[in-house]
């Protein structure tokens, strides 16, 4: 098999620009492209799983000058998750996807995948912007007041964020004259301390807006609430996961310092607490799920920050958390289309997702919490452990309320919609039972 990771980005991008030509068949073409992308992501994943890292330079220039893609086990997994769920989600959206929607959807996927697999910090920025612009448009696409408001909030914060990311990149470039993440990482020590920290702060703030970190996540509840179910689901597994992965790279590869670890840890803890507490009293389901997402992102951030200290458990924890959150939250967002859990499949999806999120074995969420605890224990972070437990109980409380509220059989969801939801939730079980994620995390990391 010829491995060209660039196809993961190129195919959706090109398809996105072709689609407007074939208006009528746009959705079908997009579906085919996403399916191909999914297959390709799976292929790359298993290639990386068995053969190790892949580097690909584009247009013949070698790093540090040229642009290059770097796929290690982590990015392969992220790319797999994004494309896999993107496909399932697209099937769920089905007829609602016209050619415009499909185009934006493809752009968002391309952008998210790009963030994950790029090895160039400016490219990362570009992909962030592609994802963000596509997401704004997707959110606004519902065209009611709430959707527009959500889109505007996202847009304002996203624009500020992009400015900050760009400033951060500019600061790094001004010192090191390179944009390659590898190169930056190798020479980070030679940077002027103040500029180094300023650039980290800028990048963290900028990417943090996309990664739903507190207090940069003002847009999150409104955007999720305003967006249609399919889009909310997309937002929960594609841009946010890519962004948190970008932060992980920032911390693990570029700025592996104790100060950054500490700041990320406590920001993560606060995000977790605020997210879960805010979700506790929320009456609107989508908004509740959005706050819950914030909390989960906080937990993933904690895991990643611990991973900079202790690769052994924390990295596994973060991967499990990402998988669990992607599978569960997106299926819950899809489920929020109907007020009640209608039919067996949606009951299954809803319950499995909730159980995985609150950490019941043998679902993926449990392993996330388990390894996170082990990692936190290794660092003797008593307060963090207790706060995570507290947040977990709060989370359980509102999810229990949610489960109770959605008892009932009324609602009309198509069979395909329910099947896709169930399929999504099944991945929480699948990844929980298979040793895949565990083994992935033990593969050598990028730059390490």
């Amino acid at each position, binding site marked *: 098999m010829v491995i060209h990771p660039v196809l993961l980005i190129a195919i959706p991008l090109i398809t996105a620009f072709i689609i407007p030509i074939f208006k009528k068949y746009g959705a079908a073409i997009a579906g085919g492209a996403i399916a191909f992308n999914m297959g390709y992501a799976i292929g790359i994943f298993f290639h990386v799983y068995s053969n190790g890292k892949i580097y690909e330079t584009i247009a013949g220039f070698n790093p540090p000058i040229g642009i290059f893609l770097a796929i290690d086990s982590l990015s392969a997994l992220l790319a797999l998750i994004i494309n896999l769920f993107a496909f399932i989600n697209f099937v769920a959206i089905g007829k609602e996807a016209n050619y415009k929607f499909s185009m934006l959807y493809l752009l968002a996927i391309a952008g998210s995948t790009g963030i994950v697999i790029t090895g160039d910090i400016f490219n990362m920025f570009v992909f962030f912007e592609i994802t963000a612009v596509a997401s704004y448009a997707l959110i606004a696409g519902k065209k009611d007041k709430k959707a527009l408001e959500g889109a505007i909030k996202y847009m304002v914060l996203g624009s500020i964020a992009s400015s900050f990311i760009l400033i951060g990149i500019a600061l790094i470039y001004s010192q090191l004259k390179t944009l390659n993440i590898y190169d930056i990482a190798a020479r980070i020590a030679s940077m002027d301390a103040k500029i180094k*920290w*300023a650039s980290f*702060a800028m990048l963290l703030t900028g990417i943090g807006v996309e990664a739903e970190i507190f207090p940069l996540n003002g847009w999150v509840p409104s955007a999720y609430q305003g967006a249609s179910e399919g889009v909310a689901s997309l937002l929960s597994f594609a841009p946010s996961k890519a962004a948190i992965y970008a932060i992980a790279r920032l911390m693990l590869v570029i700025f592996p310092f104790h100060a950054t670890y500490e700041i990320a840890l406590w920001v993560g803890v606060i995000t977790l607490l605020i997210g879960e*507490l805010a979700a506790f009293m929320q009456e609107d389901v989508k908004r509740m799920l959005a706050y819950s997402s914030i909390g989960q992102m906080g937990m993933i951030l904690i895991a990643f920050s611990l991973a900079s200290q202790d690769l052994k458990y924390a990295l596994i924890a973060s991967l499990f958390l990402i998988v669990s959150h992607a599978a569960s939250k997106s299926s819950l967002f899809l489920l929020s289309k109907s007020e009640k859990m209608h039919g067996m499949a949606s009951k299954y999806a809803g319950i499995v997702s909730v159980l995985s999120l609150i950490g019941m074995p043998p679902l993926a969420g449990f392993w996330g919490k388990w390894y996170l*605890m082990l990692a936190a224990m290794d660092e003797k972070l008593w307060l963090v452990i207790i706060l995570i*437990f507290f947040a977990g109980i709060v989370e359980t409380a509102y999810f229990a*309320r949610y489960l109770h509220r959605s008892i009932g059989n009324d609602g009309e969801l198509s069979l395909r919609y329910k099947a896709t939801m169930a399929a999504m939730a099944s991945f929480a079980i699948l990844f929980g039972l298979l040793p895949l994620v565990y083994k992935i995390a033990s593969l050598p990391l990028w730059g390490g």
Partner: protein
Amino acid sequence: MLDIIFAELVVAAIITFFVREKLAAIIAFFISLLPLLALLDWASNYGFAIINLGIENHMKIYLAGVTLHLAITPLSWFFALMILPLFPVIMLYSYSFFKENDGFFALMLLSLFATFGILLSRDMLSLFLFWEMMSWSSFLLVYRSKDKNAIMSYLIFSVFAAFAILFGIIILWHENSSLLLSDILNISGKLGFVAIASIITGFAVKAVIMPLHAWAPFVYSKCDEPFVAFLSGGLSKLGYYGIFLFLFSLKGVDILQNYMTNVSWNYLLAVFGALSAFFATLIAILQDDLRKLLAYSSIGQLGYIAIGFGIGTPLAITGALFQAFNHAFFKAILFLAAGIVAYRTGKWKISELGGLAYKMPFTFMATLFAIFALAAIPITSGFASKWLLYEAAIQQKYVFIAPIMLIAGVGAFLYSFRILYGVFLGENRHDSVEEAPKSMIAALFILVLPLIIFVVFPGYMLDLMKPALQAAGIESIAHTKFAIETSLAKYNSIAVLITLMVAMIPAFVIYKARKHRVTSFEDNYLAGEPYELHKPAMHAANNYYKPLKKVLLPYLEPGATYYFEKIYNGIKCVSNAVRRIYTGYVQDYAIYVVLFLLFVMGWLIWI
């Protein structure tokens, strides 16, 4: 053999989900007999020898990067003996209980799977894993009730328990660098204390020790009765299994004692057990909902087990295990019988029931027997267990716990009679009610058997638990087939039974000597007034313990639930305050972004 059983349980769980209810019940019944085969296999291989299989003989499951160790131990064998027989009985019962198959049997089999897993776990991770599987499979059964309080309280308390156990386990893992249960805990001081205390707290939630019982009344009173029978009879025992495992098998007692030598932490467990026995009994007396009454009675009876573990002498532990065994059976009978009553009449309120004894004599007899066991009348094995506990308390001169236990035992008579009188005796209110279906009756009487066997031979029960106790280094107490002897006194069950039978002779002679005429219940003495005038007042079961209620209620009113609600409301307030951060103004959010930037910069550059 174990792996086959595990696999078959899962497969059967999936199959039963999709077949018709009767077929599902039959499959579930036969499949749930399988784990018992494993027990028999073990008994035939090793008898009552104390065998702890080495790590090389464990069954291993590889899951998500970890290895789970499973094997039967003497302790798990004993607990399996008390919990696992409940499953086939419940399946048998459910054969006619459910009108349609909506997943009950599948979930029950999953619960069985998890139960079996918990009992067989030989490392803490698999213990926790199966424990949580048990939590969610039973949660899904609770979820079927569609009752908000039940669903929320069960899930929240389960997760709280899980976190408490997890917290303890990771401390033990970190300090011990091993999760195997066969290793001796090499931990002491504050950390060891926190770990063990936390684990015990976690298991205490499922063991329904006050004040962590708040979920039980909601759950017990709203779910399907066959499930509640398992919940009260089986699941609570798993909580005590965990407590026993960590407290005695792993010598957690010593860790607790070594932390502060002059404080007996164990005693605290006994005190909580005594308090739950006492208060739950008093609350049970005042209930009108049959299921709530049984729920509180369950809490009270389980409190005795906690007392036994808390006292911690061989005598007390023997008593506690005996009590656990009895409770598994008699409480299952009571809940199943309550289910029969509801199945036939559709009513739960005791004040609306009455006079069922002549309509359903077999149900009544089984219930009566269970109540004898519950009230520790010496013609069932229920007495021996309580007697051992009383002896243990006196032996240790626990002058606070002993009277509370005894008075709770007396209180049990009160609510027992409330069930008997309110439901089965008194005015006949249901003319068209029939006896329960045969499968249900059969289920009840299967459960009665052990209560009879072990009153005649209490020594056999002590023999059964002997390996479990000796594996934990606890000597078993002196006994023969019929009699148990302690340093304080002796209890000879056969003397009681034979004397009772002999004493029955004069009673029987008196009974048979002269004829009597059976009249309808309506034909009775009402101070000379015709029955019609009194019809509304015939049933005295309405607000039965009114005088007692008047006296006790002010003291029982606040209750643990009240405080948990306060905590819940407190979190609500905090949550409301936190939500205000999201003002809805994008300008504010922009300010947050800038502030965050400045904060991070400030932190990194100046600190």
